[in-house]
């Protein structure tokens, strides 16, 4: 009797716990824009917000991870749009000058003239920087006046001696172009084109301008052998005899910082030479300091230095070989001002031959860029 009562009780408990849930149809995928928290049966009604196709950067050997802004992750559509914008003169007031007008692919996205000329035929004040591996730069422009590629891309459009346009005008032009409306919709899922998304797209494209396929890189991967002159140049480069590595070290061939490499004397600085980083920081300690450029593809990016004062690599090497000029902020790495490295002619040529081994022809010839 007692046992029977217990069995009945257990059965009652079990059945009381189980309650048939009603079937609620709807979208059960939490990633969908119409996800229903009540639905327990997916009826196939899920609707997904459009997302562009993610693009993954492959970090080259010896490079840090690329820091990409969280609000501008790379996408296939964003990069393609950035490339189109980079090459489109629509960004300039008279529709004649594109980014690529001063940052030419054949020159590793640098300008082969000393100073670029804007739409009003006015020369700029500095040599256009090469755009190569920019995703690993921590500041932009010779004086470091921009901290991100997005920030940098804002400036030339409105600069009166460059594209001399206004962002309102550029936005109007782009919004009146149905092909751009579609491309921005695909890249960013927006219906109105604004300046922020223009520079985002350009920055995405620029982050893909990666060059690591030079003869030097192939030598590092043991795919070819550098010749004796190039190897001697490599040795000069990477020892204190030539002492290039202190500023142009690592696989990036730059140090992401600023130096005064003795281009101008105290007198020429006093007479109005470019003050470089000090123009941005207002710190006298930064006078005549400029951002170290990468030496990758240096063969393609003549003329050299922030003001394009040297036409050839020979002239550049001669500057260091003779020691440069003294000023208060000259870098102690310029060990013997006025004396220099004192390399022989053969050593200078070896150094140049090594620098040319850093040329990545695939980078300038590849139609993807």
């Amino acid at each position: 009797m007692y046992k029977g009562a217990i069995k009945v009780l257990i059965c009652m408990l079990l059945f009381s716990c189980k309650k048939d849930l009603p079937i609620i149809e709807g979208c059960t995928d939490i990633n969908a824009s119409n996800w229903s928290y009540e639905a327990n049966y997916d009826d196939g009604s899920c609707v997904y917000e459009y997302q562009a196709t993610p693009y993954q950067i492959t970090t080259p050997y010896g490079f840090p991870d690329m820091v990409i802004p969280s609000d501008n992750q790379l996408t296939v559509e964003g990069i393609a749009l950035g490339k189109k914008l980079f090459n489109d003169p629509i960004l300039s007031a008279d529709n004649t000058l594109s980014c690529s007008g001063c940052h030419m692919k054949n020159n590793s996205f640098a300008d082969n003239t000393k100073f670029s000329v804007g739409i009003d035929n006015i020369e700029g004040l500095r040599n256009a920087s090469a755009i190569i591996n920019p995703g690993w730069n921590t500041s932009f422009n010779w004086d470091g006046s921009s901290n991100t590629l997005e920030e940098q891309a804002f400036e030339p459009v409105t600069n009166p001696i460059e594209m001399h346009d206004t962002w309102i005008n550029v936005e109007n032009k782009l919004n009146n172009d149905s092909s751009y409306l579609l491309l921005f919709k695909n890249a960013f899922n927006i219906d109105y084109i604004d300046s922020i998304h223009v520079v985002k797209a350009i920055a995405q494209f620029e982050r893909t301008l990666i060059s690591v396929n030079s003869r030097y890189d192939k030598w590092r991967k043991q795919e070819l052998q550098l010749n004796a002159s190039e190897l001697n140049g490599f040795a000069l480069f990477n020892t204190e005899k030539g002492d290039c590595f202190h500023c142009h070290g690592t696989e990036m061939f730059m140090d992401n910082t600023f130096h005064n490499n003795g281009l101008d004397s105290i007198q020429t600085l006093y007479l109005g030479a470019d003050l470089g980083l000090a123009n941005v920081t207002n710190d006298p300690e930064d006078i005549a300091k400029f951002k170290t450029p990468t030496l990758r593809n240096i063969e393609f990016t003549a003329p050299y230095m922030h003001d394009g004062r040297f036409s050839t690599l020979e002239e550049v090497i001669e500057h260091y070989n003779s020691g440069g000029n003294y000023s208060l902020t000259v870098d102690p790495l310029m060990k013997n001002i006025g004396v220099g490295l004192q390399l022989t002619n053969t050593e200078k040529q070896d150094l140049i031959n090594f620098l040319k081994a850093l040329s990545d022809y695939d980078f300038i010839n590849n139609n993807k860029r």
Partner: protein
Amino acid sequence: MKKNIIYILLTAIILSSCGDDLDTTILINFSHHVDNQAISSDSLDHTNEAGENYNVKTLKYILSDIKLLANKTEILLKDIHYVDINDESTLFFQTDVIDNGSYILQFTFGLDSTNNVSNNYVNESFHATMSWPEMMGGGYHYMKLEGAYGNDSTFYNTHTGPTMGMNHSFIHLNQDLNINVDNDIGNLEYNISMNINNWYSNPHTVNLAPAIMMNMTKQMQLMQNGMTDVFSIQGILD
């Protein structure tokens, strides 16, 4: 009687809840001087044992394996710390919470040979500025100490590192100072101080020079001078 026990228990609970221990962390600062002088970056205000007048424009260095030692215990404070005197954010770090105890501080100047490998720290801020070419052994500089000497336009580059792969890093163990962590007292602050002039004296008189990365003798001498008395540690009182 039963009532009394309840009162005692309640009082004990209340009292113990009022006396919460503080979590103790340590703020480690880095400071630099030349004997009793502050660093001068302009005029040649400093004089080393060899009688050379000099200034200091650049001082960047790496400390690694910074830890507290106690009986049978060691607590890693920081794996690697990079100091650049021109970047204030590098001149201190705060430790995690430290357990009560009496400790002594130890660190490695530079990186030991196990860790000092080219591209081992590609994502550290010092990767590009401190790299040491494979041609000369590979890895990273331990220190870049630079400035002018003799006259304004002649520069020295006291760069130390793994010349031809030789390990010239050294361990600094500060046995003279006990760091007493007591959660009742609270946070502590200590100063790791570098006397720059001592790199150039005791036991070796080292002359300033523009290029020493391949000079094994100077690297050894600098290492031995560094071990002697370059670093000191002071507690900072509130």
